[in-house]
């Protein structure tokens, strides 16, 4: 089925299941510990051995020798394979780092060996016995000096004449902001069980957001036919982009399985994850804004740099700037800088997360210079087209309504407007807000449905990384087939199922529900033909045509009806910009003596098209707000500039937000429908909640103290010597 024109009124506008608050259908399995994650599949194949990885301890150079003699002789060891034993393996299209093979070291903790043993304890002990010698090469780790070198170079995206307009503007801002590298830090480390014992078909039970990408990536990495590779990933302990890719857990387990002739399971040790796998690059961003006295932006420049391995793209912090705010003169450019650090790649809302951390502080600073309410300043610069391109309208944009609804619900008007002007005992109280923007792409997505005895099974290689896919796909199928939710079973994450959009870029919910809808429509047509009906309705478990009602349970009399289809999205979508919008409002307390910042209240108002399930959608948004709180106040992969690695590579050193950091959170969903998004008129919401929230916290900290911090995270050391006198 092709979605080739905006949706008319359809069954989802009269919905009984879609859009209603249903608790997760996979919930009982998860809360009872019965949902099996990758490393836990004891049942899928006999004779599993355990693999343990070894990582490089230099950032750049060549391995001159590896002594594996002691490791091979250690108790229980079945195989040791080093990177010197294998020609460099292939690199998949969307990755930059080589996962294994060859003597070249491109980043710290790059995998250089795998030890396979009967038990975890044996493999770990033996891995520690491998001795490696390196020829260390000079490497680059300093983003700041690279940014200074690159400023003003390259080919920017321009509209009008920025320089002239900025020079002429009565009110201007020119500041530099920095965001640190961040780690996805999902709770389940990358893990795989791989059976490639005989070198024939390769079977993986893994933790991966994108099943088909995974299959294609492994085919390229090992130069084998993708049809000989199968993946299963029904439950995934978080991803946030870290599991968009095949990582070294899968590759080492495959190599280990091949060498030992038995299935091998391998979970990355937690301290290995941050430097071995991908992360969000640090950024440096210089933002210049010029505005007229009435608050209309006349000139905006956003120049950013981030680090990447050769062939990667870093963190594109300018992603939102061509779209979010009006302004006739623009200069926008991102410089990806090649550095010898672990691979920078997508982490939740790549681009907008880091970009809005800076841009939304800049907007706060401009509002202050203009003596305008920051909400009103943003409203004054709303746009319904891509600035500079009247032929490119937004499909459906209600940013202003997000700002107004959010401000009302939060009580924004009642806040203290003078920085440092409100106290509660030892705490300086501040309020801040920020806008949220994130693109809303859709991807081709397929599904198969099976109807037997009135029960429907949905099969698609879509994944549920905590997003609620199981539940919203069941809701979509139930709605389309006129069945109760309980009559629908959803099976996900197997490469033998039809290829879906997968989970990433907040495209999963919108795309995969459209795919399930397409498959259900195919089934409805099949049933209609079977019954000789033209256009029957499906409701209450029946096929209804005039006075005639046939129960779905009676249609095939024990036979299984199977239908499959893929939703494709037509070119008409390219004529407009699809995006989601939001507004964050935050109250913080900053301790007057220590400078410690605590979040007291958080509220987000979101415009993301039809909300398919308000419970799971709200959880996505509060999850983003929580991740953004970490991003604002504590998260920073601390770079060892001397040796080029992230020093705090575990969950003790890399400080994500914990229970004590997060108050009750409020989310408001605007009741919007984007008719050109999907047949369900839905857009993604999984990344929107993270966008802008860190800046809202930083702005609140400024309002509390009068101290403007432009370098994340906003920690007490950056404020303590500038706080108001006690």
């Amino acid at each position: 089925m092709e979605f080739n024109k905006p949706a008319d009124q359809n069954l989802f506008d009269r919905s009984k299941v879609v859009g209603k608050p249903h608790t997760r259908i996979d919930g009982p399995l998860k809360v009872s510990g019965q949902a099996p994650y990758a490393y836990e599949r004891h049942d899928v194949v006999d004779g599993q051995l355990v693999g343990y990885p070894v990582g490089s301890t230099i950032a750049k150079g060549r391995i001159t020798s590896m002594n594996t003699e002691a490791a091979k002789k250690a108790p229980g060891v079945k195989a040791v394979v080093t990177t010197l034993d294998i020609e460099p393996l292939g690199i998949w299209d969307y990755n930059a780092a080589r996962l294994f093979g060859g003597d070249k070291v491109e980043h710290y903790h790059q995998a250089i060996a795998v030890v396979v043993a009967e038990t975890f304890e044996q493999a770990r002990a033996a891995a520690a016995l491998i001795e490696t010698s390196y020829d260390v090469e000079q490497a680059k780790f300093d983003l700041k000096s690279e940014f200074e070198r690159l400023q003003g170079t390259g080919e920017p995206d321009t509209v009008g004449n920025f320089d002239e307009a900025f020079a002429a503007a009565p009110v201007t801002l020119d500041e530099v902001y920095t965001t640190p590298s961040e780690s996805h830090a999902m709770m389940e480390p990358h893990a795989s069980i791989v059976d490639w014992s005989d070198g024939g078909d390769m079977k993986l039970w893994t933790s991966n957001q994108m099943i088909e990408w995974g299959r294609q990536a492994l085919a390229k990495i090992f130069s084998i036919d993708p049809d000989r590779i199968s993946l299963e990933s029904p439950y995934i302990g978080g991803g946030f982009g870290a599991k968009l890719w095949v990582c070294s857990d899968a590759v080492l387990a495959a190599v280990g399985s091949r060498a030992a002739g038995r299935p091998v399971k391998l979970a990355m040790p937690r301290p290995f994850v941050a430097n071995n796998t991908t992360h969000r690059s640090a950024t440096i961003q210089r933002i210049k804004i010029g505005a007229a006295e009435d608050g209309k932006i006349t000139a905006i420049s956003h120049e950013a740099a981030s680090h990447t391995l050769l062939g990667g793209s870093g963190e594109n912090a300018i992603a939102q700037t061509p779209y979010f705010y009006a302004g006739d003169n623009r200069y926008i450019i991102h410089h990806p800088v090649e550095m010898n650090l672990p691979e920078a790649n997508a982490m939740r809302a790549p681009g907008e997360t880091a970009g809005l951390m800076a841009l939304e502080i800049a907007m706060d600073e401009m509002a202050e210079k203009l003596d305008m309410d920051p909400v009103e300043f943003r409203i004054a610069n709303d746009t319904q087209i891509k600035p500079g391109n009247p032929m490119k309208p937004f499909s459906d944009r209600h940013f202003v309504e997000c700002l107004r609804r959010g401000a009302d619900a939060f009580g924004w008007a009642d806040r203290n407007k003078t920085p440092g002007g409100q106290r509660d005992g030892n705490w300086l109280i501040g309020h801040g807000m920020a806008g949220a923007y994130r693109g809303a792409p859709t991807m081709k997505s397929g599904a198969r449905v099976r109807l037997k005895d009135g029960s429907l099974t949905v099969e698609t290689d879509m994944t549920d990384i905590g997003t609620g896919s199981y539940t919203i796909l069941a809701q979509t199928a139930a709605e389309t087939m006129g069945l109760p939710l309980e009559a629908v079973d959803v099976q996900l994450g197997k490469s033998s199922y039809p290829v879906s959009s997968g989970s990433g870029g907040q495209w999963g919910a919108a795309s995969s529900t459209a795919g399930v809808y397409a498959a259900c429509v195919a089934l409805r047509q099949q049933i209609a033909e079977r019954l000789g009906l033209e256009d029957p309705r499906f409701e209450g478990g029946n096929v209804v045509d005039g006075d005639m009602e046939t129960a779905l349970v009676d249609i095939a009399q024990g036979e299984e009806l199977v239908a499959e289809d893929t939703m494709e999205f037509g070119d008409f979508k390219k004529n407009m910009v699809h995006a989601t919008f939001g507004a964050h409002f935050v109250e913080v307390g900053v301790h007057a003596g220590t400078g410690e910042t605590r979040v007291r209240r958080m509220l987000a108002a979101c415009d993301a098209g039809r909300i398919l399930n308000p419970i799971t959608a709200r959880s996505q948004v509060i999850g983003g707000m929580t991740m953004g709180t970490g991003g604002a106040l504590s998260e920073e992969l601390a770079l060892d500039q001397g040796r080029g690695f992230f020093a705090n590579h575990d969950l003790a050193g890399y400080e994500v937000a914990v229970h004590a950091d997060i108050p009750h959170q409020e989310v408001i969903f605007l009741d919007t429908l984007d008719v050109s998004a999907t047949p369900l008129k839905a857009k993604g919401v999984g990344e929107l909640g993270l966008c802008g929230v860190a800046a809202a916290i930083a702005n609140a900290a400024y309002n509390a103290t009068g101290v403007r911090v432009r370098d994340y995270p906003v920690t007490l050391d950056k404020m303590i010597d500038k706080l108001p006198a006690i």
Partner: protein
Amino acid sequence: MNLPIEFQLRRRTLLIGTAASAAALRFAQTAQAQTPVSKPAGAEKSAVTMTVNGETKTLELDHRTTLLDALREHLKLTGTKKGCDHGQCGACTVSVNGTRVNSCLSLAVMHEGDEVTTIEGLGTPDNLDPMQQAFVDHDGFQCGYCTPGQICSAKAVIDEIRAGVPSHVTSDLTSPIEMSGPEIRERMSGNICRCGAYSNIVEAITEVAGEQV
């Protein structure tokens, strides 16, 4: 044996893959027969008997095996999760003799005679414990990986507050401790949820605590 090789293995790998596994096996047997000096520290095994979810279990375990791996790998109770293996995340929280512990931080052989309760011992999908049900009702999880640890901790937190065990945020040590949001959040802070379900988890715990009064 001539294994089909489809990616470019160098010759040495082939040797490891075929001959070395057999060699390693031989070595392990001879090493055991020789002096214990050549054995790596900790490789010995001992028997340990504990009660897990009400059932007596005797295991012959490598001394290095954590309680967490004894549960996950030997008893196949995989509901208890390994998030960090370093006591940093709380995903492995279980109850030992009525006290919550990070099961990754203790060796299994230290638990002779202990009573261990894991998430599997609390309830099943068809017969959930009230705390498990409250997590479903309040959507107190997303990916589900930290969830068993959160639930085991949550049950213990209510007990600890009732028992008068003070926390960092307890302001008055002389009167009964309030079952408040700050108390719950402080005591749950050893259980990380990267999906960010904290707001919902606290509501789930508050509801269960309220019902139990």
